[in-house]
């Protein structure tokens, strides 16, 4: 079966600092490689989680897929068709996104209704006379009272805003929904209902979902499959169940060890990973995790391990993967 969403050799780099200044000094033009040569596929209806710490490139990856950041090299295709630099309105519609920060993800000067109606109108999703009705349906879909259609974002709570954010994404009836840290900024008590809603919508609407988060637990809760990223690379790509049962990459294991857990007391001075990630502008040779890896050996310094494994969705990028 051909993959629904196919990411191939995707690389995204950003220019940092002044190219002119660098040239004057004879330095190479400083480029930050945010996403480095990543390849994976997502099936229709699948829910893929992408997890990693800040600066690992997970958000850039999401934004590259939605077309918010230009792709440096590689390709993205959806349902066999390319998602290139220039996308038609109809193509754009198919990939939608839910953003992290509920305080900035809604236009503060627009009511909920205008926010939704604008999209319906511009994309001619429904006939003009059906717009009001469709707005109401969307509110139902995200379990918000219709009375809030007249509200402006600042009078909504964080959870309500995030639901509006989801409604906005769904208004365009997309095939793929990318949720970028969709609950990270929400109060703890409000996170769960939003996560539940996303799960439920995926089933009801047959959405393909990419869920991006730094929180392993959240990813586990919503995803069928998880890609772990570290410094622009995918280091592990496995089904959720497998990954959490037997993480293979030392980084995945360290992440899990570092996450706070109920009922476990921290021992003085103890930590799961030593040191801090190196600068993305000054990457170590070989395996990027090598300087912090407890298992690192000489080969790790010389050869960058490929993301490989038994199948497309059973891959690890490590010379010494943990075999559990």
């Amino acid at each position, binding site marked *: 079966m051909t993959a629904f969403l196919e990411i191939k050799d995707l690389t995204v780099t950003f220019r940092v600092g002044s190219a002119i200044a660098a040239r004057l000094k004879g330095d190479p033009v400083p480029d930050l490689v945010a996403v480095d040569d990543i390849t994976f596929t997502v099936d229709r209806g699948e829910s893929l989680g992408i997890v990693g710490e800040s600066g690992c490139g997970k958000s850039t990856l999401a934004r590259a897929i939605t077309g918010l950041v230009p792709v440096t090299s590689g390709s993205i295709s959806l349902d066999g068709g390319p998602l290139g630099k220039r996308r038609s309105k109809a193509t754009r519609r198919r990939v939608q996104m839910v953003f992290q920060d509920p305080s900035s993800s809604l236009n503060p000067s627009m009511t909920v209704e205008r926010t939704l109606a604008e999209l319906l109108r511009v994309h001619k999703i429904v006939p003009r006379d059906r717009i009001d009705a469709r707005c109401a349906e969307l509110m139902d879909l995200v379990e918000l009272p219709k009375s809030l259609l007249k509200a402006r974002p600042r*009078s909504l709570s964080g959870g309500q805003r995030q639901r509006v954010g989801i409604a906005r994404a769904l208004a365009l009836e997309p095939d793929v929904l990318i949720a970028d840290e969709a609950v*990270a900024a929400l109060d703890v008590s409000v996170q769960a209902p939003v996560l539940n809603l996303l799960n439920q919508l995926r089933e009801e609407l047959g959405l393909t979902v990419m869920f991006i988060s730094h929180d392993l637990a959240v990813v586990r809760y919503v995803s069928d499959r998880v890609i772990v990223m570290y410094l622009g690379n995918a280091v592990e790509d496995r089904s959720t169940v497998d990954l959490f049962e037997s993480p293979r990459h030392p980084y995945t294991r360290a992440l899990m060890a570092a996450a706070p857990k109920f009922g476990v007391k921290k021992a003085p001075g103890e930590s799961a990973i030593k040191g801090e990630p190196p600068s993305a502008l000054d990457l170590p040779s070989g395996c990027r995790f090598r300087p912090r890896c407890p298992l690192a050996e000489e080969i790790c310094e010389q050869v960058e391990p490929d993301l490989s494994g038994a199948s497309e969705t059973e891959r690890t990028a490590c010379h010494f993967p943990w075999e559990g």
Partner: protein
Amino acid sequence: MTDPTALPLDLSAADSQGPLDDRKFWQRLPVKVWVGLAIVLIYVLIAVFAPLLAPHDPLAIDPANKLASPTGDHLLGTDELGRDVLSRLLYAARVDLPIGFLGALMPMVLGTILGALAGFYGRWTDTLVMRTADVVQAFPAYILVIVLVFALGQGAKSILVAFTVLAWVVYARIIRGEVLRIRDLDYVHAARVAGLGRLRILRAHVLPNAINQTLIYLPSDIVFATLALAAFSFLGLGIPPPTPEWGAMIAEGQPFIRTNWWLATIPGLIIVVFGLGVSLIGEGFEERLHG
């Protein structure tokens, strides 16, 4: 979890979600705004009803009765052509107020447009607009007004064009900064992901939210425009006579300050009070919006 809205107090996050609808915004305005609004309203009423309020024709000359001291007939005396000073002061509001307001609004409109284009389109548009802004900012206003008065003739038109050409820079910088900030906010990203056109995004999603900052700046610019108008009148580049205008009245009255001190002093005070009123509104709004 990061909450970028978190300020030192954790109640601030709640604040930003608080139900602050527009009505409450107005209710909670500081007293100074109301004082300022009252002052400005009085001036506006004076401007509107000047023909009813003025005891005399502000242009009617009576050279035989020039430089008269205040009397029952001429409450503030007469000027050097025997015109009633009180009537002229009242009528002057019809010149100074519109120029003050327009002199701030027009640059705001131009600055908003240019700043928005610069911020939103970036690249050479940005470079062009902002470097022009640098040059304009470095340029002495006086020269520009002189050139414009040469080219367009003396009068409100030249003054307004000069203000617009000079003062847009501030607005452009504010708007550009705001646009750059808002351009990276998620709701703009969302609009882009949704495939909305750039112009639509700029118009509907970026500008309405960027414009608040300029509104705060507007009152002080109104004061500045009023003062600049007065200064240009003083230098003989303002509104041509005999149209009453406060700055010109100061300039005309100034030679007589030893004998008829009120001629120059009162229009000055009137400008000060107007400026105070406008500034109070500005300060109050700023306080309300920024805490």
